[in-house]
């Protein structure tokens, strides 16, 4: 489902954020991406969502070469992915419901269907009662769960999450991890960049470790 073949991402002046990275993820897997801060985890996720382009090698999703994709095609790729960003990127001038609605509005869903889906997604992350709340009024854990609801509302087959449990207390982190387990169980392919390996260990089928942009051995 996801394949990296000798992928390099070089930032000027000649710093390799990723160097010759290869791996593959099958459909339905939950894969953890580990490594020290600055090892290239975020860069790897950005290459998958075509937020950045590889300097060398091939990034494939469902056999499609994402790195060589035309600009006009990128929006349609992103609609098939669920993205949970490290800094969440919630919009603070709209409430929880409207934040989760955004991907559906972008994809052109009929408002009625969209509202149903938004409520289902909010329910899944336990925020249905807070749909009118502005993000600023939500706790850190709630904001993270809101970001997850927004990522899954269009029911993507692939979910990419960048440090979804960072800055959360252990209890809240466990709740968030449980949400990911739930998605794994219904067959979503998940790639999580995280330090908290134990939280996700139960469902993880692979652990990819990056070290200064290079892939270390990846024990199953």
């Amino acid at each position: 489902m996801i394949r990296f073949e000798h992928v390099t991402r070089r930032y000027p002046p000649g710093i390799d954020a990723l160097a010759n990275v290869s791996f593959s993820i099958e459909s339905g897997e939950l894969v953890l991406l580990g490594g020290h801060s600055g090892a290239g985890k975020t860069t790897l996720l950005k290459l998958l969502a075509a937020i950045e382009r590889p300097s060398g090698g091939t990034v494939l999703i469902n056999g499609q070469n994402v790195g060589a994709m035309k600009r006009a095609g990128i929006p349609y790729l992103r609609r098939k992915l669920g993205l949970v960003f490290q800094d969440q990127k919630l919009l603070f001038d709209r409430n929880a419901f409207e934040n989760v609605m955004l991907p559906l509005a972008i994809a052109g869903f009929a408002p009625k269907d969209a509202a149903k889906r938004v409520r289902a997604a909010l329910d899944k992350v336990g925020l249905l009662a807070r749909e009118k709340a502005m993000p600023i009024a939500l706790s850190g854990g709630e904001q993270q769960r809101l970001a997850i609801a927004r990522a899954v509302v269009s029911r993507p087959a692939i979910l990419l999450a960048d440090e979804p449990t960072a800055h959360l207390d252990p209890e809240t982190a466990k709740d968030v991890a449980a949400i990911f387990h739930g998605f794994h169980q219904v067959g979503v392919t998940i790639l999580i960049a995280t330090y908290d390996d134990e939280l996700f260990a139960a469902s993880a089928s692979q652990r990819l470790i990056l070290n200064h942009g290079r892939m270390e051995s990846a024990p199953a």
Partner: protein
Amino acid sequence: MNAWLTQHGKALTWALRRLTAAPVNTLLSLLAIGVALALPAGGQMLLGNALQFARSTGNDNATPQISLFLSLNADRKAADGIAARLRNLANAKDVRFVSRDDALKRMQAGEGLAEVIAALPKNPFPDAFVVKPRDESPAAIEKMRDEISRWAKVEHVQLDSTWVRRLDAMLRLGRTGVALLTLLLGLGLVAITFTTIRLQILSQRAEIEVSRLLGAAESFIRRPYYYFGALQGLAGGAVAWLIVMGMTGVLSGPVAEVALLYNTSVTLTPLAALDAMLLLVLAGGLGWLGAALSLGQHTQV
């Protein structure tokens, strides 16, 4: 189709919300656009009225007309023939016959002329026609004069072409002025929209970025700003129209006074419906153009 309508509806309501969210800013922008467009629109209105005023000052010379005099030996039958031919001319709006007897009577009524005319052995006046043309452009009138003067029994064709030419030149000057004003102040409108859209884009940076990350196509991101620009232009055009209407109201009193002194009853007519429509379409279109230019500058990835 339905999804398409929904998307446009959303973009439109977004634009309306943004416009009403900062009423003072919006009002000032609209006023700037309105004043800018009121100048050419007002000019167009005054131009239309100037023409009407020139026509109605009672002076016969104000309306271009052709006078033709028949030769003295032309009898009544020949005059009737000429009259029919004149009425058949495509460009003749009005044909008036002045018989030689009428001309004589009118001259006798004139002060001091009665004795002179009485001293003449016979009526010295020929039969005459006064023709008002439909197309008042100098070229059309001169063409008509040339045609008529070739007819038999037509002794002399007189045309006040200097007046026609002057009026025509003045009108052309006025129209060029209005066109120049429209061009310059239209550019001003584009510049105003460019800046307001830039501010909107800057204040919505986060939304634009997140929308892109969630798979929004460029058209989705840009659409609301196009609506914003076009709506702002349209509303500015409406303000300009109101200003011109107000101007018409304020000026109509003084104009009536002047008209009275010229012995006419001219009233100031407001901007024609077609011109008003054109004003609104132009304002909306230029707003859209300003938005397009601004989006090209400020939403590059």
